[in-house]
């Protein structure tokens, strides 16, 4: 870690922000794995929405507030909404 930090021009001592960034990276990896492993489509959509919020926090922690807003609206709200509506439509037809 210190060798890597020394190699970058933005080298700085390990601070609170680094802890936050590492934590959210681990959470995003866990969230993505969870979305893939869940098999029931409705639960998967809910997990995808949570994963969208995690990604938004990730972008915020990496100082990209514009992308945070896009991810929050599209990834956490609109995409799950469209998927839930589509699932409802498919189920209705199957009945």
């Amino acid at each position, binding site marked *: 870690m210190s060798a890597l930090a020394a*190699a*970058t021009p*933005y080298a700085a001592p390990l601070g609170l922000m680094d802890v936050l960034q590492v934590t959210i990276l681990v959470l995003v990896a866990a969230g993505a794995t969870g979305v893939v492993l869940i098999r029931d489509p409705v639960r998967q959509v809910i997990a995808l929405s949570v994963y969208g919020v995690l990604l938004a926090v990730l972008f915020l922690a990496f100082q990209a*507030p*514009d992308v945070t*807003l896009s991810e929050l609206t599209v990834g956490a709200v*609109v995409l799950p*909404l469209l998927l839930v509506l589509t699932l409802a*439509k498919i189920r209705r037809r199957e009945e």
Partner: protein
Amino acid sequence: MTPAARRWVFLAGAAGFAAFLLWGLTGLPGFGGYPGPYGDIINRVAVAQTNATGVVSAINFEYRGFDTVGEEFILFTAAIGVATVLRHLRGERERAARDGAMDRDAPPVSEAVRLVSLVLVGPVFLVGWYLASHAQTSPSGGFQGGVVLATGFVLIYLAGEFLVFKRISPVDITDAVGAVGAGGFAAVGVTALAMGLPYLFNFLPLGSAPGAVSSSGTIALISFFVGIEVAAAFVLIVSELLEQTLLVRQERP
């Protein structure tokens, strides 16, 4: 191919992929390092050139405005595509639309959902409008604002009934608003052309000071057009999908 042979082909491919991936990763710049020149140049000149303190918006709607026109029409075309495909299915489904329980009403919306939605509608519209109209000053923009505005309409659906949602966002009006938004963006560019300037040139006065809402010239105008286009596109997509899902209930006598 036998399973064993297939496994060997996979392992060989995976090993090659892993080798190339590791090779590529070792060549990456350090974490947080930025070797490209463009970001540093833009950061130095953008605020002075455009009077926009929202530099991301300045890039989106000014420095690479031509790319953004293309992206906006991608969304416009996608919304038209969704509407077209779902409209095509409508006739087919109406013949087959037979609910199993015609004597029962649709389950009522719970009071809690209704109340929370009603409370949120106003603030959501306000935040959406703020985002769409402040692209030039702070991290926001027409796209984010437009999507938030569209979720405001979805909240109205949640708070009330599908028919209310349809009444306040009829397809004709959403289509027209979307077309005005998409066309307005392109028209800003053509106006610059008509003045003898390059396409999408920032021909409006830049305002007195960077960070003022009225500053940044065409950036704020384009963000406004993008905002209403995105809002209309998402409302159109959601309302078409809702119609597909709920028409059975709606048709009930």
